[in-house]
């Protein structure tokens, strides 16, 4: 493959399907975030070979319901445009003569790399319709209140920083985008972004490199020095005072999110184990049914149905969330803060650690049982400039000890308390 374009193959006989993914990664910026969202929307509308969405759909249905999907992800400081085709492996088709893998690569590369154009721009009609569509998606961010609360907390913590951007962009930025300037942007993006192509499925007896390299649209791509950020968490300056944000919306249940910083030194962050220590800390705090949050907020105090935490390695944060009665805000925050404090005091047993470890290892072992999960894991490795195999991943997790988790706990500091209420 050419420089800047990487093919990853996962040969597995666990599935009835082949999954092909093409990821375009570029640095996440306010300037480009809305354009990227619009771009993914427009590309799926038509390409040179299948000019309308109807033609694309009919073609996919003809391929025994091959499924095209696209989306966007924020991975650390990168914005990733994701495109997938999932199709049935030839072995499970009524007629064996089809070469479904080749056909799938063809249609996917056609949609991503050979879009429908007119007068040196995208199709006007598609562009205008998709601008409306993206506007709607952006406005829908308040529809799921729990997700919105988490997003708002992140936004408050990363004001004017790429990490705080909404992945579908901003309504006011749509105005200045048109079919022509977006197409110019697209050409630039295709020539400079990092391209990762994943093929997962039963690939033996297939020369997959050749199949991909000789694909007409992929062959046309240029070599590049790909522009993207190598993901790694940054050092954080200690917060002087926690930020309290309250927002009102028409909700029955209050949604509480508390964002914590992991105030680790540069050296600690660069330690390969940092990520795995964080995962264990999080599992003990709020990642499992035996975790402190689940036990204390839900089971003991009966305050919530959902009470959990998550560890965001790329941004270096722990997020705690709970759905609670509005009037129980104080009670719930106190209990949550007590759990964070208990972690700092080392108030967790070897058994807690082993339980957490088992849950994490079991998740790691299950990664290769799901095609998309495995692909996304390796994309994450690729974008952080690492190549930790699933086996090594499990070994790292095995290796974390209590002292390390306690040290990690001491670096957790409250940044923002966000409460969505009525």
């Amino acid at each position, binding site marked *: 493959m050419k420089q800047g374009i990487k093919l990853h193959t996962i040969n597995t*006989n666990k599935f009835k*399907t082949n999954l092909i993914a093409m990821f375009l990664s570029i640095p996440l910026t306010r300037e480009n975030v809305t354009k990227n969202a619009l771009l993914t929307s427009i590309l799926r509308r038509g390409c040179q070979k299948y000019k309308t969405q109807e033609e694309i759909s009919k073609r996919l249905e*003809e391929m025994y*319901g091959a499924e095209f999907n696209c989306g966007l992800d924020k991975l650390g400081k990168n914005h990733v445009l994701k495109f997938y085709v999932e199709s*049935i492996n030839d072995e499970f088709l009524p007629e064996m003569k089809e070469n479904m893998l080749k056909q799938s690569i063809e249609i996917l590369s056609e949609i991503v790399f050979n879009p429908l154009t007119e007068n040196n721009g995208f199709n006007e009609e598609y562009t205008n319709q998709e601008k409306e569509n993206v506007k*709607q998606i952006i406005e829908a961010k308040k529809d799921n209140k729990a997700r919105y609360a988490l997003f708002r907390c992140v936004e408050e913590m990363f004001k004017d920083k790429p990490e705080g951007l909404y992945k579908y962009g901003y309504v006011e930025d749509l105005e200045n985008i048109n079919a022509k300037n977006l197409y110019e942007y697209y050409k630039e993006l295709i020539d400079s972004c990092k391209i990762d192509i994943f093929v997962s499925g039963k690939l033996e007896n297939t020369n997959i490199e050749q199949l991909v390299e000789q694909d007409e649209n992929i062959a046309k791509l240029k070599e590049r020095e790909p522009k993207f950020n190598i993901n790694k968490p940054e050092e954080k300056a200690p917060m002087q005072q926690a930020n309290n944000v309250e927002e009102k919306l028409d909700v029955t249940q209050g949604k509480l999110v508390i964002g914590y910083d992991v105030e680790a030194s540069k050296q600690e962050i660069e330690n390969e184990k940092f990520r795995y220590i964080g995962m264990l800390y999080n599992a003990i705090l709020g990642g499992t049914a035996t975790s402190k949050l689940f036990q204390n907020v839900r089971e003991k105090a*009966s305050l919530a149905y959902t009470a959990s935490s998550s560890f965001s390695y790329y941004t270096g944060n722990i997020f705690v969330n709970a759905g609670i009665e509005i009037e129980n805000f104080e009670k719930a925050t106190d209990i949550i803060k007590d759990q964070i404090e208990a972690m700092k005091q080392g108030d967790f047993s070897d058994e807690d650690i082993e339980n957490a470890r*088992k849950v994490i290892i079991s998740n790691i072992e299950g990664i290769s049982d799901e095609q998309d999960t495995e692909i996304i894991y390796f994309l994450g490795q690729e974008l952080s400039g690492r190549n930790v195999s699933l086996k090594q991943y499990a070994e790292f997790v095995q290796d974390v000890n209590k002292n390390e988790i306690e040290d990690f706990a001491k670096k957790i500091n409250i940044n923002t308390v966000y409460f969505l209420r009525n």
Partner: protein
Amino acid sequence: MQVIENLKVKEKVYIEKLNNGLTVMIIPKEGIKKKYIIWGTHYGSNDSKFIVPGENEVTEVPKGVAHFLEHKMFEQENGRNSLDVLSSLGVNANAFTTNTHTAYLYEATDNFYEALDEFMDYVQHPYFTDENVEKEKGIIGQEIMMYDDYPEWKVYLNALEAMYHNHPVKLDITGTIETISHIDKDILYKCYNTFYNPSNMCLVVCGDFEPKEILKEIENRLIEKKPEGEIKRIYENEDESIVKPRVESKMEVSIPLFTIGIKCIPPKQKEKVKTHIAIEILLNMIAGESSKLYQDLYKSGVILNMPSFEYEFTDDYAYILVSGASRNPDEFLEKFNQEIENYIKNGINEEDFERTKKMIYGEYVKEYNNVSDIARMFLNDFMKGVNSFDYIEEISTIDIEYAKQVLIDNFTTEKQVFSVVKSN
């Protein structure tokens, strides 16, 4: 053990009905690390009025008991919570309640048999006290309130309420804060003893198992129980008509949500699978991604995403749901009905029909990609009285004539309801 093999997806299911009445289904998946087990009882939110086998009196319990029981099953007499025990073994355990069944499950890569000890022990040993029942009311209360904030849930439930006069399928699975306040430990025990008899249950495992071995492991962990007689379930008489054609609620949503519900006659046993397949083909032809309806409405900005389709059936009810989001839900409804009329009048296009059939075939194959989907599907279909393999076997037998008959029999506008949720 009965073995059914499907040559199209190259999978086998081993089925055994044990002496105590329990049905065990095993779907071996060589080389997969995840093992999945799900144990379901044919007892859901619909079953709040029934006659216990051997009794003459009708028992009626508050709405929401099946779901409440599901929450409380994890509590153990030794003070431990089985969810914690399973979690500490590193397995992913959960449970859920539907209108027709309750299921307990876990997924494991390691410690499968240690987890099986706990799993089979807790499902067979309830432990309810006044105190632990009271405590759960707070947690379930928050779960009910969480659902209150989901507009998707509201639009769905409203559609069912508009379709059904009396049948409990129209009610919230969780019950309400009011109904659950009447639940106590005696009610829970009574329902447990009635519905958690092995003859009313089915256990499905999927993963890298040797069928005989895993069956033995399961048998070894069963406590002795005798099969019971039939539980008589009492549902109020339900008229074929709908309650009201339209229902609207106000909630904060960025774009109105809609659900079209069509109340159908429940299919006869022999027709269940075929009717289901035909309805899936028809819905995709009428409003699926390549349909004229969807393409036109997408271009004019009326809808932005493919609507979702559902056909749900049991022996005593059946309905179709078409749900989505639209700036102008009424326009979608109008065009949808025009298209049905058009199909009835002008017939079904053969090319579109064959292409859609191919697509549905592919969808069925994809359902065999992971152990949890497979096990859940077999359990769910078992509760409906069908075998999952039948879908992939029967699809080739569905022709245009059959589909047309299903269309005429089921897509009746007089039995259609329209539910909308929009902002003030």
